[in-house]
């Protein structure tokens, strides 16, 4: 009896969800008929890979899909390999790809021919924040101190560590250079974990690690967050260290460093996917978002949990693509063609 009531309530909830996004029930009819591949255009162990595997685990644990999800890494050429694979799999709806900023940056920096319009957008699941970090032993207590030091020092004196070349970390670095009018030395490393360790070891002066990449070192009192590159503070109240939480980190703009950057964590599927195929995945991600495991993951990584689909998502992508082109053009990162 009890079970019946629960499932009835679930049905009602599902109907409400379907109704809310204006779908006729019949449209949710498409179901995958074989295993679905999640392509990760990055290596194992990175942020996108972790998120893909969390989703795989949640789907499996809560039995959200009749067919299994398989995670496949295609990291070649700064992720170009993965995007080209999806682009060339027209009308194969059993393939979705998780994106990071290389969706925009890789084609611009390398000239490999793909763009976001080549694929079918599904949903934005979250936005990843960026935080300016320094070593806790350094004298800089606020972003203001650090910016003053950069302005007062020699050009190239301050070293910024980051992931990859001509990708999000270096774009932010270039934006900081433009905002301060002073040059930094950018050192590209393989992954965010390496960067955080190099900063703790004092080999670089600062980094723009994502929260999840540096939170352990912050809690251990080895790194200090100076500001977050978002328009508002991270809306999390809990304490991470004894006296500070994510919400206590000021925005960079508050500190007089007018730089904003967020990284897309979203999904695309192959070109030519039909609306009911897209609707299936949107629905799946909505269910994933409802699970406590996902909420926990979002909070641990201090993600910005904005969710977007459909036209709204497309408009956001269009704007983000333009922003990236502008930022990379200003920084001189565009591939010569």
């Amino acid at each position, binding site marked *: 009896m009890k079970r019946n009531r629960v499932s009835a309530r679930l049905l009602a909830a599902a109907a409400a969800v379907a109704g809310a996004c204006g779908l006729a029930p019949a449209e949710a009819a498409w179901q995958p008929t074989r295993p679905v591949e999640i392509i990760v255009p990055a*290596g*194992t*162990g990175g942020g996108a*890979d*972790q998120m893909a*595997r*969390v989703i*795989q*685990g949640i789907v*499996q*644990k809560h039995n959200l899909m009749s067919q299994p999800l398989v995670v*496949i890494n*295609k*990291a*070649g*050429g*700064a992720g*170009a*390999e993965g995007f*080209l694979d999806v682009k060339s799999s027209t009308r194969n709806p059993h393939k979705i790809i998780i994106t990071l900023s290389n969706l925009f940056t890789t084609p611009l*920096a*390398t*000239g*490999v021919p793909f763009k976001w319009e080549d694929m079918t957008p599904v949903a934005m699941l979250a936005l990843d924040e960026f935080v300016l970090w320094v070593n806790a032993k350094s004298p800089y207590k606020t972003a203001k101190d650090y910016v003053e030091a950069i302005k007062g020092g020699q050009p*190239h004196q301050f*070293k910024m560590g980051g992931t*990859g*070349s*001509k*990708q999000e970390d*270096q774009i932010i670095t270039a934006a900081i250079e433009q905002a301060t009018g002073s040059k930094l*030395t*950018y*050192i*590209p490393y*393989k*992954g965010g*974990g*390496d960067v*955080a*360790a*190099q900063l*703790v*070891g*004092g*080999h*670089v002066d600062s980094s723009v690690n994502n929260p*999840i990449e540096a*939170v*352990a*070192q912050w*809690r*251990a009192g*080895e790194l200090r967050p100076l500001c977050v590159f978002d328009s508002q503070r991270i809306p999390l109240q809990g304490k991470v260290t004894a006296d500070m939480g994510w919400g206590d980190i000021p925005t960079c703009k508050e500190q007089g460093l007018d730089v904003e950057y967020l990284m897309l964590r979203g999904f695309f599927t192959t070109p030519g996917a039909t609306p009911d195929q897209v609707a299936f995945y949107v629905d799946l991600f909505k269910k994933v978002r409802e699970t406590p*495991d996902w909420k*926990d*993951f979002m909070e*641990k990584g201090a993600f910005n949990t904005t969710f977007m689909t459909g036209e709204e998502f497309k408009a956001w992508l269009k704007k983000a693509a333009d922003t990236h082109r502008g930022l990379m053009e200003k920084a001189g*990162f565009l*591939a010569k063609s």
Partner: protein
Amino acid sequence: MEALTSLIHGFGVLGDPMNIVYMFVGIFLGVLIGVLPGLGGANGVAILLPLTFSMSPVSAIIMLSSIYWGALFGGAITSVLFNIPGEPWSVATTFDGYPMAQQGRAGEALTAAFTGSFFGAFVATLLLTFLAPVIARFALNFGPAEFFAVYLLTFCSFVGMGKESPFKVISAMMLGFALAAVGLDTVTGQLRMTFGSAELLRGFDFLVAVIGLFGVGEILLTMEEGLAFKGRSAKINLRVVLHTWKELPRLWLTALRGSIVGCWMGITPGGATPASFMSYGLAKRFSRNGARFGKGEIEGVLAPETAAHAAGTSALLPMLTLGIPGSPTAAVLLGGLLIWGLQPGPLLFVEQKDFVWGLIASIYLGNIAGLIVVLTTVPLFASILRIPFSIIAPIILVVCAVGAYTVHNALLDISVMLIFGVLGYLFKKLGYPLAPLVLALVLGDMAESSFRQAMLLSRGSLSIFWANPLVAILVTLALAMLFWPLISFVTERFGRKRPQMVPGQ
């Protein structure tokens, strides 16, 4: 003493019989993964990771790390039997392991490999138990310059050790560097030598090359030489294990050196692959039997295996204490930690005592269990060599092809593997050494990026390689290693020439 009480507590956590079951299941799966070339420990753990989300973190990490130990053990099996390294770190094991199998001593080689693995892991685990916090700090001293110095040392301890002409060694190494450069340049973000082809974007994977060069190349050679395995006379009973064990204590120095090299490379985090090469190079240089290396010397199996397993185990240390993975597999496990709601980093040892000490205790038990599993199967594996070549060769080729495909899920890689197979055959025929090529291919990329990162830091000044005692010692040691043959050659030449010149004057 505190470490000891914590460890005993850790064994208590393991007391749950389910955890022991998970451990054996993990070891068994790991050995399978290690045997299949291409399906490396990292892939294996990644595939099975989602299965563990519903377990408790302690059980999950016990099972996954057992897979890792199993894969470390299993990698040696195909290297010895068929000259096919199942894992990158077992390449060096083929150098002497395969000749031993050809002489009918496969059982001995496998026993030495497994025992060496166990010993290396045991030393590394002791280190993990008692010195974890101290040693973890050491890894932080490693910046780009220090990393480059370590890679340089690996190259230098390897160059000039072969009997082949230096010209051939250098050509093979340069080819390796060239192949390693294909794909994305991480420092400038530009594509190199991809010639507009989407398939070349990912570059040449080390594993695909190795499966071709060693596995396929070997099959081509065997076909030419008479369609039969040479190692058919292998003794297949368990006495071979005991017999080999009697011999091993003599080689304690090699095993100890391998463990030290391995622990150091695992912590820094250079990884198991360079560790195995470096250990082999050092063993060859310092052994009394150095000249016989490559022809089936048991020391040549012991050295790389000990180092690889020590490195594989100690790679967990920077992962647990600093959140820096020391190997690709550790990177996947790191992702797992986050998903289970644990935060790797300096506080893990304080906040998650059950988890950490349960894991460390499971390393002890896991390795003992692993050793038992693999040693009892030595006769089984050795008897594979009795299967007629005409049956086993096609199976090996299929397994190789599947392995090459699995690395990146790319069909083209199977063709790449076959081309490398022909290349491996030609190299053998023409007397070019394969090891320098493989070494350059696996380390070339990392050595290049750390060199260029160091140059960015120092703004182009080479003085960064003597900027602190750590890096200065490493670089000086490497250069001494590199020029030692040259120095001895010159002094020898000089010494011989002088008496001849006297009459001329």
